[in-house]
């Protein structure tokens, strides 16, 4: 990367952040009930970091468990559909139904079912993580070069050969795109599910802060969740760069 490009890559987002910061400070000064002063946020976090880290831990635990379950189920289903296309017409409408059902509507129902445990948070995170991965995995597994498939077929390659040597490596870009979408979806799912019937987690922290009009606490929780989502995306991107090298 040339110096000029590097300066642009760092400078442009930095300039935008400064601009947003100015806008924030200006709004906070003009109307203190909308936004807290920007300086109050680091102070709020520094005052009780363990409180935020504990709640972050809870949310991240739900999000990552949900991500694992949702992505695992989506991959298993996509593999099944690729090998038994008849499943496709059975599976897709149900998956679509799951996807269009609002998470906010499911969360209270799950609290009724599971009680005030972490289970509803994990289930919601899994449900939101499931669909993006399913769609991407299906598209990826079916995106096979026709010529390559003919070459494999002409040698009577087994389905396992075709899957492991052709479909799976050929779909990695799709799978990583799906993983990115699913990771942010799982994070959102975990937080939203904590809005109802949870006393722990960043979602619960945000709700409590809203109730007591504690603007610094609310915004620290929001920014922490955004930063963590960003970190997750960064990790997935890093793994992709290590794995997908062509």
């Amino acid at each position, binding site marked *: 990367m040339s110096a000029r490009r590097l300066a642009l890559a760092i400078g442009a987002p930095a300039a935008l952040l400064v601009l947003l910061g100015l806008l924030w400070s200006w709004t906070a000064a003009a109307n203190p009930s909308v936004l807290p002063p920007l300086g109050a946020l680091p102070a709020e976090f520094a005052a009780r970091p363990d409180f935020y880290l504990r709640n972050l831990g809870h949310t991240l635990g739900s999000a990552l468990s949900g991500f694992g379950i949702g992505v695992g189920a989506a991959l298993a289903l996509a593999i099944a559909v690729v090998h038994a296309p008849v499943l496709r017409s059975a599976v897709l409408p149900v998956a679509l139904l799951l996807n269009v059902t609002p998470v906010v509507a499911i969360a209270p129902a799950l609290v009724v079912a599971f009680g005030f445990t972490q289970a509803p948070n994990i289930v919601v995170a899994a449900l939101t993580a499931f669909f993006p991965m399913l769609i991407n995995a299906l598209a990826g597994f079916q995106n096979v*070069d*026709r*010529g*390559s498939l*003919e*070459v*494999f*077929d*002409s*040698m*009577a*390659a*087994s389905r396992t*050969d075709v899957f492991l*040597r*052709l479909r799976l*490596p*050929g779909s*990695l870009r799709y799978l990583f795109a799906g993983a990115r979408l699913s990771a942010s979806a799982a994070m959102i799912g975990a937080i939203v599910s904590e809005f109802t019937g949870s006393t722990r987690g960043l979602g619960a922290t945000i709700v409590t802060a809203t109730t007591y009009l504690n603007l610094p606490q609310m915004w620290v929780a929001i920014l922490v969740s955004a930063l963590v989502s960003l970190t997750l995306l960064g990790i997935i991107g890093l793994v992709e760069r290590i794995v*997908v*090298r*062509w």
Partner: protein
Amino acid sequence: MTDAIALRGVGRTFPGKRPVAALDGIDLTVRAGEFVTLFGPSGSGKSTLLRIIAGLERADAGAVEVLGGTPREAARRKDIGWVPQNAALLPWSRVRANAGLSALVNRRADRAPHPQRVPQDVDGMLAEVGLADFADVRPGQLSGGMQQRAALARVFVQGAPLLLMDEPFSALDEITRSAVRLQLLDLWERHRKTVVFVTHSAEEAALLSDRVIVLSPRPGRIAAEIAVPIPRPRADGAADSDEVRAVEREITAALRAGASG
């Protein structure tokens, strides 16, 4: 010599609202070691016929015998080498792994390989096609012509006695195309496989083949069979000879007669 391929009354109709008869009453015999080209316009069913011989598609009329059995039996023994239109290299595998693909899939066939199939050394074959220095790069770093050479290496490494090539050079520019063509001639003259080659270049058909089968369109029928008397080896530039031009003219004339009749 024995027959590598024997087709009797082979037909194929694609179903649908208005069924399309792609092939009708194809009788064709290919001797072992012969280089036969299927030549015809779009819609003459030449690719369909090749796919039927490969067992990638089924005929719905007639009998197909390949290497003394059904096409699928030959495929299960890895006795059919397929070269598709694109080079179809795996972009994530290096050139060496791509050339050696046949050893990685359907390993069951390698436990007791058919005596007719003689797998070749990967690095030796890459050297033969001039890619020795590129064994460790990924296909994305190769030019189109080099990719097609790697695809040729892959099919010759497999060592199958029968090679089926479906317009393998059609995506290449004319200069690259004639170079890769000579490469194929050179490989074939050294390894002597049975080849069925599909093209819609009359020049390619004349240069490469022992015999050219001209197909007429809708439904695909054999309009003419043209023997190519040009002596071999031809890999050293016979392409310029008047003989090739004469055969080319004969092929084109047969094509026109087939299309009008």
